[in-house]
């Protein structure tokens, strides 16, 4: 049964994953073309920007199964079919969120490989430990962003969800300038990254996972009560 839910989630998200992969390919190519001239910090900023886009893209759809505008009647079309199956809404949400998160991890991994290749080609040697550390930080911090997108999607319908998620991310970025460094995820991914020789930002990573759980819990509570 859950295999089928994963299968369904995969069918729903594969186009988004393709889009995300194109995004990563494009950004990596861009970095390659700038090549050796680019300072390492710029590569890090680009990577962070791509992560925001990845998290925003892959988190979409919640338990909805098709964009509202493709439904002939009502707002959610085939979502009714999903909800009529003998499955808890929590399981629907969890499967969908997990599949998207795995895709995020995959995308991030590819992106980090690109960054690694870039460093080989001359940005200046990067310690493998710094590279791995950076990847871990990106994944940890991306998880919060990702689940923010999952949460936004539970109550915003298709036409508003992208804008809503972007506004939410902007808000988080703005808030980060008022956040103590110890739990500031944007700093952790950027100037305080292990890639630039800093220590692992365990505090920010733990905080990010904590916030991701809060977001998932909130999403569950919305979905549990929501009427479709």
């Amino acid at each position, binding site marked *: 049964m859950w295999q089928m839910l994963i299968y369904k989630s995969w069918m*729903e998200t594969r186009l988004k994953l393709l889009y995300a992969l194109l995004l990563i390919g494009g950004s990596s190519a861009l970095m390659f073309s700038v090549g050796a001239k680019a300072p390492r910090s710029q590569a890090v900023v680009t990577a962070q920007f791509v992560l925001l886009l990845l998290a925003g893209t892959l988190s979409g759809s919640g338990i909805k199964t098709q964009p509202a505008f*493709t439904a002939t*009647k009502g707002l959610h079309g*085939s979502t*009714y079919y999903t*909800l*009529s199956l003998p499955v808890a*809404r929590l399981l629907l949400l969890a499967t969908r969120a997990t599949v998207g998160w795995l895709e995020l991890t995959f995308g991030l991994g590819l992106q980090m490989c690109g960054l690694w290749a870039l460093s080989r080609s001359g940005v200046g040697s990067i310690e493998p430990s710094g590279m791995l550390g950076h990847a871990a930080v990106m994944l940890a911090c991306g998880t919060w962003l990702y689940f923010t997108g999952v949460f936004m999607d539970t109550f915003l319908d298709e036409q508003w969800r992208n804008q809503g998620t972007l506004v939410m991310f902007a808000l988080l970025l703005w808030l980060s300038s008022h956040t103590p460094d110890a739990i500031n995820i944007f700093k952790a991914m950027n100037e305080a990254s292990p890639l630039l020789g800093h220590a692992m930002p365990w505090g920010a990573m733990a905080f990010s996972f904590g916030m991701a759980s809060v977001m998932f819990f909130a999403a569950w509570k919305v979905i*549990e009560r929501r009427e*479709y």
Partner: protein
Amino acid sequence: MSDFIIETHQLTKSFKGQPALRGLDLRVPAGSIFGFLGRNGAGKTTTIKTLMGLLQPDGGTAMVFGMPATHEASSIKIRQRIGFVTEDKELYPYMTVEQIIRFTRAFYPKWRVDLERRYLQLFELPLKRKIPDLSKGMRSKLMLLLAISRGAELLILDEPTDGLDPAAIEDVLRELVRSAASGDTTIFFSSHQLHEVEGIADHIGIIDRGKMIVTGALDDLKAQYQRIQVVLGDWVSPPEHWVDGVEHIRQEGRVTSILASRNVDAIVQQAQSLPGATVERFPVTLKEIFLEHVRSN
């Protein structure tokens, strides 16, 4: 458990202040084919969504198989035993016929492969075709296949014949009769095609403005309801007060046409007592019962 597979009591539900259900009492006997009738917007789909656990009512109770449909844990148990056809017949646009069947099968341990094969053949469904490329009629048939093959004890069908041509309607109704005849399946279906309901339903409920206004065994209703036609002599006027049970009176020249919902014999007797009266009684169709109540409500 009671003899009713579905039992709601004083169900209420509003959407943004607009009442959709206003104290609905619905009782569907086990083993029946129950026709759920009403105009568009009368509350049929809201009722069905509540039974499926998609909506939370504002008040009242909804029990299916003796379990509350309003709690998620019991609603999941209920849904394991229900075959469902949605009003809009929407299925995942990214799947093919074969994929949606494989997908759905995984959720129902009692899945009947024999029925799946039978309906694939009977309905001539193309396995490899994507759902958006199916006609409306094919999608309705596909949904029916997905509902019946679950081996469900209860089929909840929201306008199952909507969008089908007459030949396909006949096919679908015949299959519903077949699954009802083959065991303990209860069928609860909404429709506004009165003639098809009249054929296959043994119980009906008419909902109007969120309330059940007539419900019962169809044969009993037909026995209770009669049209009585009275022709009076030239100088005789019909009585001011009729016996209890007269639903509606229409006067055309000398002819008084009465729709009676009970006490038919007493009404006939009263009519016959009028000087020079000729009294005839006629059976009433479901359509007449429906229109009478929906118009006067």
